[in-house]
């Protein structure tokens, strides 16, 4: 669905940087651009969105040519219908949270969608605030919600969860995963978080020094990079305590003891010495 083969000359930390990126994504792909800081991830998204001039090459989406340097075709950003979460958010300072989302709403669409999104990103009572008085993470969530208002077929997400705490990050990752599948979106995510990538992406594109060095599943990529993304570990319950209306389990994994709180009503699912499976979500914050 997305075929991209572009070249661009940029400044790099070790002199000039020749960005030369090839991407081939299918409809429904959830791809992740993975690479060191300054390697050209944001620039790639910006060129795909038509915000940065491309030196040379071609961008084709759904058999439509968006950009071609020899044929001198260059679609305006307005005509490339995609959702984009900017790394620096780029919220409109003159509009409240609600208005920022309202501005993105296509004609005729119901405002219910806005309320739902505001609820989802947990900004209910802040919807009347201007971005300037929001916290960093709150601004990031507005940026995400705004990009989703149009329900675009292609989503570009530039480190959309970097300023969020574990709880809301998990929740929004789950939501993103769900709408990605539900609406069969094609999504490109930039992230430095291996766990996040493993959870969300079916394709990881590794960029080194401006070139794509590897395109594979996250499992494969991270294994080769020597990065373990999601351990499936077994532990043993060695203590069960009641604290208020919570149940605190102490679990031993090898020499480590960790504690986990669960709702009291799940009490009868756990017992001492029981073996229990713990996945990465559990360990990593």
């Amino acid at each position: 669905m997305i075929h991209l083969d572009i070249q661009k000359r940029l400044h790099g930390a070790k002199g000039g940087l020749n960005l030369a990126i090839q991407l081939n994504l299918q409809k429904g792909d959830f791809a992740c651009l993975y690479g060191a800081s300054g390697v050209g991830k944001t620039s790639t998204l910006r060129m795909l969105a038509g915000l940065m001039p491309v030196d040379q090459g071609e961008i084709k989406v759904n058999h439509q040519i968006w950009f071609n340097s020899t044929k001198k075709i260059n679609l305006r950003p307005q005509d490339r219908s995609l959702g984009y979460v900017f790394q620096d958010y780029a919220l409109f300072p003159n509009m409240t949270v609600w208005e920022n989302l309202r501005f993105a709403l296509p004609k005729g669409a119901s405002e219910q969608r806005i309320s739902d999104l505001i609820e989802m990103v947990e900004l209910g009572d802040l919807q009347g605030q201007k971005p300037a008085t929001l916290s960093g993470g709150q601004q990031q969530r507005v940026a995400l919600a705004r990009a989703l208002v149009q329900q675009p077929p292609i989503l570009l997400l530039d480190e959309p969860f970097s300023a969020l705490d574990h709880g809301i990050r998990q929740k929004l990752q789950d939501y993103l995963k769900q709408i990605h599948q539900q609406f069969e979106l094609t999504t490109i995510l930039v992230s430095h978080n291996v766990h996040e990538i493993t959870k969300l992406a079916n394709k990881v594109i590794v960029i080194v020094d401006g070139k794509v060095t590897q395109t594979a599943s996250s499992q494969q990529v991270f294994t080769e990079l020597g990065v373990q993304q999601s351990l499936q570990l077994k532990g043993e319950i060695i203590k069960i305590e009641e604290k208020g209306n919570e149940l605190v389990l102490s679990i031993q994994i090898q020499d480590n003891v960790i504690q986990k709180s669960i709702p009291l009503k799940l009490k009868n699912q756990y017992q001492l010495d029981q073996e229990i499976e713990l996945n990465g979500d559990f360990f990593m914050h």
Partner: protein
Amino acid sequence: MDWTPLVLTFQLATITTIILVLVALPLAYWLVHSRSYFKPIVETLVSMPLVLPPTVLGFYFLIAFSPNHAFGQWLDEYLGLRLVFSFTGLVIASVIYSLPFMVQPIQAGLAGLSPSLREAAFVLGKSKWITLWKVEIPNIKAALLTGIVLSFAHTIGEFGVVLMIGGNIPAQTKVASIAIYDEVEALNYSAANSYSLILFVITFCILLMVYAINGGYVKRFWK
């Protein structure tokens, strides 16, 4: 005391300012985003009406607009417009003369905006015009206000061009600045003083209101 000149003055200033906003916005927008080699030339030309003494500029307008010269004749024959000694002529002359006061602050304001705002709006599928209207203009309110206040105040005090092209016709082109000038020339200082004072007070009140609302002082007061 004859109030017509005062009424005429505020009519002229208001109409001129409104037209200026409409003309200056697209011009300033072009100046900000163009990479053309003509750009610095246009930028310079916009400021040039300021450089000539108003009466001289007025004289050139007079010649240009006069039905006996090519341009004025064309206006007269094809559009039925006689710009000399008419209110319409005053408006056009004032617009040209005050153009830099509106264009330049707006241009500076737009140039100071972060490009990511435009980009974000474009990605959301918004046209340049909607982006300008809903995103860029609301974020350069201070600069726009500067342009409006400068143009408005300048049109009120403007005098040389207006005198030349308007012909000082009572109830038509005799604005307050000319009335005051007449009184000073006639050594009627007390009459000039009262005119000036009234002009000053009314304008002061208008601008004070504008600034107070803009600065949120009115809101603060009611809170």
